[in-house]
């Protein structure tokens, strides 16, 4: 009795033993905000999404303010602070101070080194923005590969804007492809084609946002033109790469039927759009903005009313391959 190895059917490697990394490590570095496992809305199947930090657009409604700047930033969630004072001692730049029994943060002195966050066990201080090599990121992305295989999922690179770190993006994608993992890239596509072309063989699925078709409006609400995005979408089509096009819908801003119709019509000339999706905007509380010392976007950015969203979804579903 009981002679067989009780661990024979365990996880494929013994968790008590570290597996050596075989390949030459890919040392290209980049900055990420975080890695999300079991991400089920960023492409097909079960995926892991890595969010790169830094974006060239400034969408007025942006609800991920921590992804805007490339540099590491300290998020301060004052309501979680227990007043232990550890941060005051840790910071070499005197960015934290205790004044009249309460902690005061001088953002202008902070260089985002993260020393204080390491000792803030209350998680009142959280550094967002980690510099990692592509290899380190890939190791984490590969952890769930069994799930990718059984669900038809894979890895998604998102942001921020991944094309703002093109080398890093390329390096991660290449590692994924080398390991046979399906890849998706979520992008606003607002960079020159020369940044995109090298990725064509590395990306299985592009997910591109068109926020507004009218360029005047686009500039007004995002800070830049949509010409490059549209131009790249055409080129991508010529390159026969599948793409999912998406529009975040914000009440009063781009939720008029004719605005969605216009996008549907425009997409009508493309061959490789596998789906056109609308995403209802989710306003967030003020916390994330305050934590970074940003102003909250105007309160009127709201999700569209359900019946309107329903109507728009029907319009979006008209999008068909010609």
């Amino acid at each position, binding site marked *: 009795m009981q002679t067989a190895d*009780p661990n024979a059917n365990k996880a494929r490697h013994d968790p008590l033993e570290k597996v050596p990394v075989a390949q030459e490590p890919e040392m290209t570095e980049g900055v990420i905000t975080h890695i999300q496992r079991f991400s089920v809305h960023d492409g097909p*199947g079960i995926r892991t999404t890595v969010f790169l930090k830094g974006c060239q657009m400034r969408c007025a409604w942006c609800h991920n303010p921590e992804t805007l700047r490339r540099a590491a930033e300290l998020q301060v969630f004052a309501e979680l602070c227990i007043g232990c004072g550890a941060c005051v001692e840790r910071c070499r730049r005197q960015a934290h101070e205790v004044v009249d029994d309460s902690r005061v943060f001088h953002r202008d002195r902070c260089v985002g080194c993260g020393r204080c966050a390491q000792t803030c*066990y209350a998680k009142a201080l959280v550094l967002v923005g980690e510099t990692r090599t592509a290899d380190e990121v890939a190791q984490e992305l590969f952890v769930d590969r069994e799930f990718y295989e059984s669900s038809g999922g894979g890895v998604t690179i998102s942001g921020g804007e991944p094309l703002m770190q093109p080398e890093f993006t390329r390096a991660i994608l290449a590692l994924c492809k080398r390991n046979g993992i399906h890849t998706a890239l979520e992008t606003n596509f607002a960079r020159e084609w020369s940044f995109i072309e090298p990725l064509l063989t590395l990306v299985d699925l592009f997910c591109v946002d068109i926020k507004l078709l009218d360029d005047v409006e686009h500039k007004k609400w995002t800070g830049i033109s949509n010409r490059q995005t549209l131009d790249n979408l055409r080129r991508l089509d010529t390159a026969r790469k599948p793409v999912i096009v998406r529009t975040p819908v914000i009440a009063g801003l781009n939720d008029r039927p004719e605005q969605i119709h216009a996008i549907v019509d425009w997409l009508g000339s493309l061959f490789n759009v596998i789906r056109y999706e609308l995403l209802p905007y989710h306003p967030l509380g003020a916390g994330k903005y305050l934590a970074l010392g940003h102003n909250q976007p105007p309160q009127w950015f709201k999700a569209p009313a359900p019946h309107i969203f329903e109507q728009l979804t029907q319009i979006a579903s008209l999008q068909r391959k010609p």
Partner: protein
Amino acid sequence: MTPEILHTISYEERLGYLRAKKEAQTREKLRRLGYMDEDDYGLVLPPEDFSWRPKPNHTNGSFYGISGWSKNFCDLLENHPVYVDPMDALAGRYMFLLNRMRSPVWPPELDYSHLKPEQEQYGIIHGIGNDQHLAPDLAIGLSLGWGGLLEKVRHCRNQHGPDKEEFFQAEEDTILAIQNWIRRTVNAIEEAEATETDPMLCENLREMAQVNRWLIEGAPRTFREACQWLAWFSMASRTYNRDGAGGQLDELLRPYYERDLRDGRIDDETTVFILACLLLIDTRYYQIGGPDAEGSDQTSRLSFLILEAAHRLKTTCNLTIRVHDGLDPELMRKGVEYLLEDRKACPRFSGDKALVEGFMRNGYSAAIARRRIAVGCNWMGVPGVEYTMNDTVKINVAKVFEVAFEEMMETTGVSPNIDELWRRFEDHLRKAVLCTARGIDFHLDHQHLNEPELVLNLFCHGPIERGLNVTNGGVDMYNMCIDGAGLATAADSFAALEQRIEKEQVITWRQIAEHLRNNYEGPDGRRVRLMMNTAEHYGQGDSLGDLWAVKISRLLTSLVKASPTPGGRNMIPGWFSWANTLALGKQVGATPDGRLAAEPISHGANPRPGFREDGAATAMVKAIAAIQPGYGNTAPIQLELDPGVGKGEEAVNNICSLIKTHVDLGGTLFNINIVDAQQVLAAHRDPSKFPNLVVRVTGFTAYFANLSPDFRQLIVDRIVREGNAVA
């Protein structure tokens, strides 16, 4: 709506009526019995003016032994109110749990005080005196009927001498009492039929009477008779001692279904309705799908109809789909689809590969291992031939950790370090396992004197033939369960100490001991607690906590498997804490993982709630697959998912992938709750507004409103902190 005003009543309307009635009965239970931190069981309350109390046969006011149980059970059934509903396909409801109506549950003469000090020291749930928790072979009953069973008992009685007279008399009386209960119910059905004005319901009652009249003696011949027979078994066995083990329901019923279908006696709509009525009477645990003894898939049309019945019923049901390589993928997809749509945490999924390979390590063949099917909260059993005490024996490893830690800190001349702590933990866990093993022996040697299994003996191969109770040599296989509880609490405690004291050196052993003594109160307590709480923990993936959890689980496994009990019984390790996390938590002071004194310990094999900021289901699936003891008992995963996981094809596909991957990695049992965190929060504030909200508590499901506030809090913590973290 009352039955009288309905004329052509569809099955859907009838089910709607029966469901509403069940919900009213559930509210009534809450009103009359208060909170119940357990399964709903399908029990219905007797009329308020009805009362019955068991007669003690011991000076302590309790009852014991063959005659104590037999007399009380027979008397209860003699007086049990009968229950007939013209809308129902099946007759009867049960109203009592006899084993809950006596105290103390163990006769004082059978003294085990020599075990008590260690049982208390290590927080051992010893299981001594705990009943049922074995798998009946219902095919015995279906093929013989009550009359055939009676004949069998009488036949065997003749083979034995006078020393077995009391045993056989009690078994005979048990059957006679059940037959009498059915007979009285037949009279009630006939009375109802006489006054029923609706022709369709009248016809239903006529058939119901016919079915039940036959079943007093005869073995079931039709599908409806077979379901009604299962219902009587369920009601009798629950009444006797809350037994809830079912069987391979699709295979048990398939011959009747196929015959009726062939002969034009039944259609699928009727089949589903009858099945729904069966599931409504009792929340019994049934397996569907999975391999037969040779490994071929058993999925049939009926497997789908059983799922469909639970889906239409939308109450608490306990169906388990056995996932193996040959499983009809459609059955799994359908199960997941209903799981998402109904949000009733049904069905669950068990992992054939690990269960079979694991059980074979105990020296059994693959054919036997495949027959060890899901029939309990977290557990499997081979129908009719195995006795297990599954889910009744537990060691609180959080408590063992505390004993080891305190001993190390109090021993002079020892400089505390993590290796020293581990050595002591190992030592105490070994003692705890031995003490538990002795308790198991004690139970097996004496339980027949305390509480014979008069109902379940009938559905085993051996007890009647040998004249021996199932606990006492009646069956061939004794594979005794030892579950660990509080894995994450212990693993996270080891990890936090290693990280903060030994690796980072930000606190000392003495300091942390002081904080634990003070329950993290006093100067700096809050910061230190957060510091310990935010150390790497189990479930994060490749963390220190994950490593410690694997180490602890392997230790428990090796200690349990090192030798059989002193009495020579095989033991099988698992991780499961059932509804005991609250009570077990009360035994343990503050722990180095930041848990406060008396807070619940972690649940079963699960990481603690909020184990990852993103709550990634994949992380949990891998973590729990990695700590499986691997001998055929389970260490279930209890996963909370927000409805945000999506709908339709995609979501079904993703959840199937989670389940399949877990099973491939060695997972044994997968429980999923799809719940809206906001709804659970709202229900926590005012449960009465959500009378139909069903949640999976552990291995069982329950109406949220009927759980105690403490227990609801536990569920809320788990769901709100994990479930809503879907990207």
